[in-house]
């Protein structure tokens, strides 16, 4: 039996989500911002777990998909920001949570108990931005090795473009031919 998306209930609008957010998340210390693409709530880090729990428990509007946890590095402010995008399973609207933490103490509580998919998203954020998610069940590196973490921070070193002239000089002017033996001692000896 195919379930129609947004079946019997009318889909929530951005305003209704904003009202719900003001009612539920503002008492927790969040600030609701409406003039962006989705409804955004800026929270202090300690309140994140309760907010994520409220979002997962909410029935109308319902949010079922945690899309991603993006990290942002603002080197001028010395802060790291984590952006959580939640979208509905049965409708197309969403809500965004933003958490800012200082760069030298990037502690954020994990939300992987309410949202199982957050497990890997948080591991990736730990790899790329050196976040520390407190209470994470398996905080092992996912993408990078331990000594190479923090790849998306602005001060992470990158390689320069190779100097092509140097490269050619290194390889010598040996022609890339295969029709004759390229090592003279084989030919002569």
């Amino acid at each position: 039996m195919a379930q129609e998306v947004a079946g019997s209930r009318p889909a929530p609008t951005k305003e209704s989500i904003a009202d719900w957010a003001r009612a539920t998340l503002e008492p927790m210390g969040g600030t609701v911002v409406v003039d962006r693409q989705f409804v955004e709530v800026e929270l202090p880090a300690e309140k994140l777990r309760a907010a994520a729990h409220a979002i997962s428990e909410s029935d109308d509007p319902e949010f079922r998909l945690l899309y991603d946890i993006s990290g942002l590095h603002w080197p001028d402010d010395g802060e790291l920001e984590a952006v959580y995008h939640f979208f509905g399973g049965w409708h197309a609207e969403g809500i965004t949570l933003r958490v800012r933490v200082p760069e030298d103490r990037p502690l954020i509580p994990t939300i992987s108990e309410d949202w199982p998919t957050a497990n890997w998203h948080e591991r990736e954020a730990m790899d790329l931005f050196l976040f520390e998610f407190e209470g994470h069940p398996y905080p092992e590196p996912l993408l990078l090795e331990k000594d190479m973490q923090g790849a998306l921070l602005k001060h992470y070193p990158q390689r320069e473009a190779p100097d092509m002239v140097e490269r050619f000089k290194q390889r010598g002017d040996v022609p890339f031919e295969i029709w004759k033996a390229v090592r003279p001692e084989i030919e002569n000896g």
Partner: protein
Amino acid sequence: MALRVDPDQPLFMPGEADPLIKDAPIGPFGAGGEVGGVFQSLPANILTLKVDQLFALSRKNSLWPMTFGIACCAIEMIGTYMANYDLDRMGILPFPSPRQADVILVAGTVNRKMARVVKLLWEQMPMPKWAIAMGSCAECGGPFYSYKNVIEGVDKIIPVDVYVPGCPPRPEALIDGFVRLQAKIMADAKAGVWRKK
């Protein structure tokens, strides 16, 4: 140019994989010099040249690459095996196990985590073996050269015989690469590379 390896020592010491990635000697054609170096550890009393050519003939017409596609080049590699640009007509049959393969066809970007795997697979392959670096990532890091996690070319880990440029290379380019490898096998046999110095 001088040979860079000592004939009495094996070319790569297993177990030193990690320092070797950083400190591999870079010869003009890649780490450790040309493919002729891998034949150094063959015994001294080798056969005469004409039988070498016979062996080379049989080997080059039946190259079995290990199916080792890593990234986007793997899709073009698969396309070359398929009906439109058939590689089977040249005797090239992809085989998944490294123990029974002749050629390792590195198709895709090699990063530090993958480098250990590539090294392990290369060491598991029995000789004679060759390596083809397919695509610009396997030759020089490709468009990802600026990322520290990416190894600038698989020739920093294994000795490469043929480089097939492109991003990804067309199937015709890969076929050209195989043809060049076949010619190289024959030319090496004719030049007596198999004889120990």
